[in-house]
C-alpha cells in the first residue's frame, strides 16, 4: 500500500498517569528515531490523575503506527490513539501583542481584527493583547497582516484536538479512575532546604 508510506500530519493522543519524567519517556521515542515533533501539548485531562498528551508529527502511517505501539508499551501509558486531520477537530490558540497607538490611530487595524475574529484579552495604555483560535494557517494570516502595524510579540499554543469518533472516552476515563484511583505525584520536597541540612 503506497499511501502507507506517504507522509502526512498525524495527531497522536495519549492518556497517561500523572508522573514525573513521563514527558521525557514519550519524547525519547520520537527523538530516538530522529522524528521532529511539530507540536506537543500536555495537560491534565478532564479526570483527575490522568494526563492527556496531544502530539503532532508529519510521518507515514507505518511509522506512526509503530511509534504509537511503542508509546503504549510504556508502563504509565493508559492508551494512545493516532488520527489524520480529517478524523479530528483541532484548534491552536495565538496571542498577539500590538502597540496601542497603532490600533487607535489606524482604522485598518481595527477592521483586520474584526475580520479575523480576534478578541482583546488585555488592554493597556501602551499595548493591547489579542487572541485568536484556529488552524495554523488562520493564526498565521493575522500575524502576517499585523506585522506592518507594530506587532511586538506573537505566541502560539500547541494543537489541541478532539477525535470525532471518540464516543465514550469521558465516561470510560471517569469510570476507570473511580475503580482504580491513580497514585499521587510525589515531588521532591527537600529542594531549597540546603542550608538547613549538613550533609557529606
Amino acid at each position, binding site marked *: 500500500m503506497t499511501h502507507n508510506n506517504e507522509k502526512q500530519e498525524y495527531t497522536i493522543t495519549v492518556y*497517561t*498517569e500523572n508522573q*514525573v*519524567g513521563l514527558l*521525557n*519517556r514519550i519524547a*525519547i521515542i520520537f527523538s*530516538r528515531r530522529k522524528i521532529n515533533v511539530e507540536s506537543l501539548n500536555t495537560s491534565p485531562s478532564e479526570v483527575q490523575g490522568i494526563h492527556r498528551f496531544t502530539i503532532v508529527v508529519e510521518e507515514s502511517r507505518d511509522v506512526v*503506527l*509503530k511509534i504509537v*505501539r*511503542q508509546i*503504549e*508499551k510504556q*508502563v*504509565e*501509558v*493508559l492508551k494512545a490513539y493516532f488520527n489524520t486531520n480529517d478524523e479530528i477537530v483541532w484548534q491552536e490558540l495565538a496571542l498577539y501583542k500590538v502597540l496601542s497607538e497603532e490600533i487607535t490611530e489606524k482604522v485598518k487595524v481595527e477592521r483586520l481584527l474584526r475580520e479575523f475574529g480576534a478578541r482583546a484579552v488585555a488592554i493597556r495604555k501602551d499595548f493591547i493583547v489579542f487572541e485568536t483560535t484556529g488552524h495554523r494557517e488562520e493564526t498565521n494570516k493575522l500575524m502576517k497582516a499585523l506585522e506592518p502595524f507594530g506587532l511586538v510579540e506573537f505566541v502560539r499554543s500547541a494543537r489541541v484536538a478532539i477525535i470525532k469518533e471518540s464516543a465514550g472516552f469521558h465516561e470510560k476515563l471517569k469510570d*476507570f479512575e473511580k475503580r*482504580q484511583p*491513580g497514585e499521587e505525584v*510525589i515531588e*521532591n*520536597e*527537600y*529542594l*531549597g*532546604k*540546603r542550608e538547613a*541540612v549538613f*550533609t557529606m
Partner: protein
Amino acid sequence: MEQKQLTGSQAVLEAFIAEGVDTIFGYPGGAIMPIYDALYDYKEKLNHILVRHEQGGIHAGQGYARTSGKVGVVFATSGPGATNLVTGLADAMIDSTPLVCITGQVYAHLLGTDAFQETDVINITMPVTKWNYQITDAVEIPNILAKAFYLAKSGRPGPVLIDITKNAQLQKFDYPGYTSCNHVRSYRPKPVIRKEYIDEAVALINNAKKPLVIFGQGVILGKAEKEFKKFIEKSGMPAAWTILGLSALSTDHPQNVGMLGMHGNYGPNVLTNECDVLIAVGMRFDDRVTGRLDKYAKQAKIIHLDIDPSEIDKNVKATVGVWGDCKETLPLLTLGIDQKDRSEWLEVFADYTKQEYEQCIQPEMYPSSEEMTMAEVIRNINEITEGNAIMVTDVGQHQMVTCRYAKFNETRSNVTSGGLGTMGFGLPAAIGAKFGALDRTVISVIGDGGFQMTLQELGTIMQTGVDVKIVILNNQFLGMVRQWQDLFHDKRYSFVDIQSPDYIMLAKSYGIEGAKVEHRKDLEGAVKTMLANKGSYLLEVMVGKENNVFPMVPQGCSVSEIRLK
C-alpha cells in the same frame, strides 16, 4: 499498637527477602552507604557478591537471571557507579532480562546542584530501562520496590532501575509491611488472547505443506518449553532457533533443524525462503536473523506469536499476529492443529545439513589443518559434558561457533549477549550464571578481545570461590571484525591485531589454575583436566589466526543467499 520503625535501607532489604532474592551483585560507594550499612545485618539472609566493576555486577545479574529464571538484583552507587550500569541495562533491555537495579543518589535537597557524584541517572537510563523511578522519601520504598519486581518479571521482562536518595535510605518511617504487587492500572503485561487469531493460525498450519517454526527466547521467558515441544511434535514441524532461543529445545531433538541467521545453519536459512507458513514464536525478527527484509520469506504466510504487541508487524508483517503469552497460546494452537508426519519436509532439511556438514561442519569440527579450530574445542567440551553444561559466551567469532556447535539438553543453558552484542559480557555473566544454577557446570567461552574488557572479574571469582570454567579461544585478533575486514574491506586489517597478556600467569595471580594449549594432541586432556578440576579453571587455546566463521549471510543479502565459504 505501635508500628515498627525501619530505615529506608532496611525496607529495601526487607523487600528483597519478601521477593525471594538470595543473591545481590554490587559495589558500594558514598551515596549507597546506608544500604550497605543495613546489609551488614542481613548477611545471613542475603548473599552479596562484591564485583570489581559495576558493569561486571550488572552482567553477573543478567547471567543469574538467565540461568535461574529469577530477577537479578544489582547495587551501585550514584554517579560513576550508576553510569557504569548503562551497558548492562541496554543489554538487558534488548534481551528482555529481568533485573532490579538499585542505585544510590545524593541527598534530595542536593539534586540538580552538581553535588559530588551526582548524575541524572533517571534520564540517562530512561531509554534502556523498562521502568525507572527516583525515591526521595522512604515511605515510598515498599510500594515502589514491589512495583519494580513486578514490572521486571511480568509480561515481556526487562530491567528496572530504582534510584534512592541518601536521605530516603537513612530516613526512619513507620513500616507498614511488604505487600507484593500484581497489578499496575496503566500496564498490560499480557495482551488478551483473541480466539479468532488462534483459529486463523490453526487453519494456516493445518493447510501448510511446508511449515517452518522459528523460535526465540520468548519460549524460555514464558517457561513454555514443554508447551513448545508438544506443539511442534504434534504436527511434526521443523523448528529452528535464534541464539537466544537456543536450549529451549534440546539440540538433538529430531525436529531441531538448527540455527537461524547470519552464521546459522544452511537449511533453516535457505528454507525460510521456501516454506509456505513461517511460525515465529517469541522472537522479534532481528536483522541478524532476517538478513535483507524485502527478500525475507516473501512466499510464506507468517504467524507471529509474541507477548509484546509492538513486536507484531515491527520488522516483518504478520499474516496472523497471535498476541499473548506463548505459555497460553501454544497449547491453544496445539489443541487445534492436526497430528501430522512431515518427514518428507524434514528430509529436505537433512539434505541441506548433509551439504553443510561436508563443506563446513566436518572441516571445522575435525580439521585436517595443523591449526586448531574453535569448533573442535567446542566438540571436545561436548564430548565430556554431553550437553549438560551451561555455556556462557562473550561476543564475536567464538560466540557464533559456540552457538552453532555446543550441545544442550536443558533449557536456560545458553547465556550470551544477543541483541546488544556486548563484548566483556562473558566472564561476569558466567559468574552470575553459576550463582543462578549452583548445581550445574558453567563453562564460559570467551575470545581474547572480550576477555580483556572485563578480566578484572577474576577478582570476584577469587574472592567468592565460585566455580567457573573459562575457555579463552585466542586467535590473536579481534576475530569477527577481522573476518569482515577480510571479506568486505579488502583485507585491510585496521586495528584488529590485539596482544594478550600471559593469561595463565594472570589467572595464577588470582589463585586460579590454568593451562595453555597450543597443540591438538594436548587439547582433549586439557579439557578433561579443566572439567575435572575442583573450582575455577582457565584454559587458553591457541586457535587459527585467520579462520572465518561460515556459513555466513553477508550483510545486505537475503537469508537464502547464505554462503558456505
